[in-house]
């Protein structure tokens, strides 16, 4: 018995030592691999992280990687296709450690990108990818820090109201404007209410869907340059920010939202805001270009319903913002600081006419390369392109634009406004305080 225990003890000890030794050895190997990859003049391996991890999207990206390898002998593209949240978590961990950052990966721009640049994690692409940047120049602004472009936007969508055409008709709304005034919009709400239909679903439990109302209020009430100047200086004293809050308060006061909206989730499950739209329980939802996919995924037949329509956030009398301006965001390919030159070529290849056209044909997003914008298969998605490219500016989701620290404080204050526990000034105060705390 004692001998057995001693052996077990020895095995346990041995296993522990082996485990620790393996961990140390593993780290050594990883470092070695990186060095080999970077220093070798011939064969190069590029690690690429993306979130198209299922179906046609994954197959397409695998093919794109294979095509690039075929065109560039000696280059291997190591593809890591992950579920979105997993990818974000893994990226976050890699960025915090500052090591093992993939060569090419997705970035959302704004303050988050700025933080990565400040930490010296990203490669300046301004010169190395200048041809590509010229093609997509109208979208490069949100990925530019100190006049240098650090990521190449490949998909840029806008937020608006996704609505149920059948329920609108049922409520007697036959003529839906693509860009309604707030009076027209209020009319929709009244008619839907009168027909016994909950007009809007909003996932205020997740905060950011509610915050989108305030962001759009800012886009409408403030000139684009005013917002940029405020973000630059941290001074949000322009009256337009208060007006944006008042617009949101007016919408909340009309009580158009689904029952229990303060605890409703954004997209997860049938009782989420998207789920309520998918199951035809509400008239509309404010959401981005992802909504057809989400709604389709929440329906039994897994298809985007025919009744899904789209119109822009309403405009307001006397607004300072250009009516053509929209709020939205997208994804860009960033290249890590230590990545080989081939990684920049690969990121540029992902923005090529050929790859972007295939991307659009599969409705994987709204392409930024003008050569591909006419290739979207889904008509509902395609109708966003002329609005997005209609001459106005696209303001990045403000929480992304301001970075996570300030963005979260802002979203918290807006969620409180939806709960009736904060006013327009509180939102502005929260932003200013969080920005000041950042130093």
């Amino acid at each position: 018995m004692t001998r057995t225990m001693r052996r077990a003890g020895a095995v346990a000890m041995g296993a522990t030592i082996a485990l620790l030794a393996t961990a140390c050895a593993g780290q050594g190997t990883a470092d070695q691999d990186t060095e080999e990859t970077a220093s070798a003049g011939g064969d190069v391996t590029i690690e690429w992280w993306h979130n198209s991890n299922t179906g046609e999207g994954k197959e397409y990206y695998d093919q794109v990687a294979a095509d690039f390898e075929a065109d560039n002998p000696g280059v291997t593209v190591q593809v890591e296709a992950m579920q979105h949240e997993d990818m974000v978590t893994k990226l976050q961990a890699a960025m915090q450690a500052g090591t093992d950052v993939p060569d090419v990966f997705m970035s959302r721009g704004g303050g988050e990108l700025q933080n990565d640049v400040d930490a010296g994690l990203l490669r300046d692409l301004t010169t190395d990818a200048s041809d590509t940047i010229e093609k997509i120049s109208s979208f490069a602004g949100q990925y530019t820090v100190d006049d240098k472009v650090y990521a190449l936007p490949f998909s840029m969508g806008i937020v608006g109201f996704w609505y149920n055409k059948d329920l609108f008709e049922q409520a007697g709304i036959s003529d839906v404007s693509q860009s309604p005034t707030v009076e027209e919009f209020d009319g929709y709400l009244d008619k839907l209410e009168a027909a016994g239909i909950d007009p809007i679903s909003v996932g205020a439990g997740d905060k950011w869907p509610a915050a989108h109302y305030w962001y759009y209020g800012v886009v409408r009430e403030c000139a684009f340059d005013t917002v940029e100047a405020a973000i630059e200086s941290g001074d949000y004293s322009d009256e337009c920010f208060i007006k944006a809050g008042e617009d949101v308060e007016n919408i909340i006061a009309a009580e158009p939202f689904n029952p229990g909206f303060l605890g409703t989730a954004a997209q997860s499950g049938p009782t989420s805001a998207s789920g309520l739209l998918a199951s035809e329980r509400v008239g509309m939802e404010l959401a981005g270009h992802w909504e057809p996919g989400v709604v389709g995924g929440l329906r039994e037949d897994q298809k985007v319903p025919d009744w899904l329509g789209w119109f822009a956030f309403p405009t307001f009398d006397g607004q300072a913002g250009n009516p053509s301006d929209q709020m939205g965001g997208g994804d860009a390919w960033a290249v890590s600081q230590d990545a080989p030159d081939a990684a920049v070529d690969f990121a540029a290849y992902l923005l090529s006419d050929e790859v972007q056209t295939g991307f659009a044909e599969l409705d994987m997003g709204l392409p930024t390369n003008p050569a591909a914008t006419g290739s979207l298969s889904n008509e509902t998605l395609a109708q966003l392109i002329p609005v997005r490219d209609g001459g106005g500016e696209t303001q990045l989701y403000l929480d992304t634009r301001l970075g996570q620290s300030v963005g979260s404080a802002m979203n918290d204050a807006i969620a409180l406004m939806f709960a009736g526990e904060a006013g327009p000034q509180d939102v502005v105060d929260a932003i200013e305080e969080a920005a000041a705390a950042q130093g």
Partner: protein
Amino acid sequence: MADDAAVTTASESSATSSRPAAGTTRTGRPAAGRPAGGRQTNDKNLRKRLEIAFFVTPALAMLVLFVVWPVITAVQMSVYRWNGRGPMVDFVGLANYVSVLTDDVFVGSLVNNLVIVVASIAIQLPLGLAIALLLNRKMWGQGMLRTIIFVPYVLAEVVAGVIWFQLLQPYYGVLDTLLQAVGLEPPPQGWLGDPDLALWTVLVILTWKYLGLAVILFLAGLQGVPDELYEAAQLDGASWWQVQRRITIPLLGPTIRTWGFLSMIGSLQLFDMVWILTKGGPANATSTMAIFLVNEGTRSNNFGIAGAASVVLFGIALVMAVLYQRLILNRDKGVA
């Protein structure tokens, strides 16, 4: 240690003396016998120590890796302003602690934690005790009832949270559908969406989840009450209530106090269930200290604030645990 000294003395004396008697000890036993016996004991001790090391090292390594190192990192993080990118260089001293302790959301979260501590004990103690006393009597379906009451405790927090989240969905959930079926109007924002109701709803769910633990512990404690005391009380003509008040509950004291300690610490660290149900909302009505620090850390990238909040949470839990130990658990010293 005593054997080591003996070995040293014996070898020293043999080295320094040339007398024939040096080979013998005062007892007349061959001197060689002592060093040989000492070596055996010494080897035994060494083996024992190695054995202890073999068994303790894995656990110690895990403890250092998953407890000590994170605690040190949290303390280090708490004195820096750090957004999670690059090295920590912006030293801010105690500024993060000031921010945390003056933050309305953190203070609200602390109050919520304390409400949950007090309410958990105030609700679960009498309820758990009553059910345990009931189930301690011979009755039909006793085993089944015990199982039913204990099952929620066995369920994973996430599973239980998701089930309740769906049951409590406003208007479309089971509870509201039933209420509407009998002509009652559910709360407009739902049970978890109304800032005035949410915390109490969470408390009901926590009671459902953890009552089983209290009942099982109390039932176990009841097994330790000697039957002779009940028999004596019966002979004295004591009523059922008198027996419970004078014998059962006092003898159950140590179990109740231990359960109270577990309940208090669990309530202070509450996270999973609330995160699944409300994420701390609406309007921070159900936020706890653990939710505050997770929000600051993973959602807002304010890792310095999150570090300070975790140290404060640790401090509060430690102080309360020590006070509980001193004021309440100390009464049980020597009871066993």
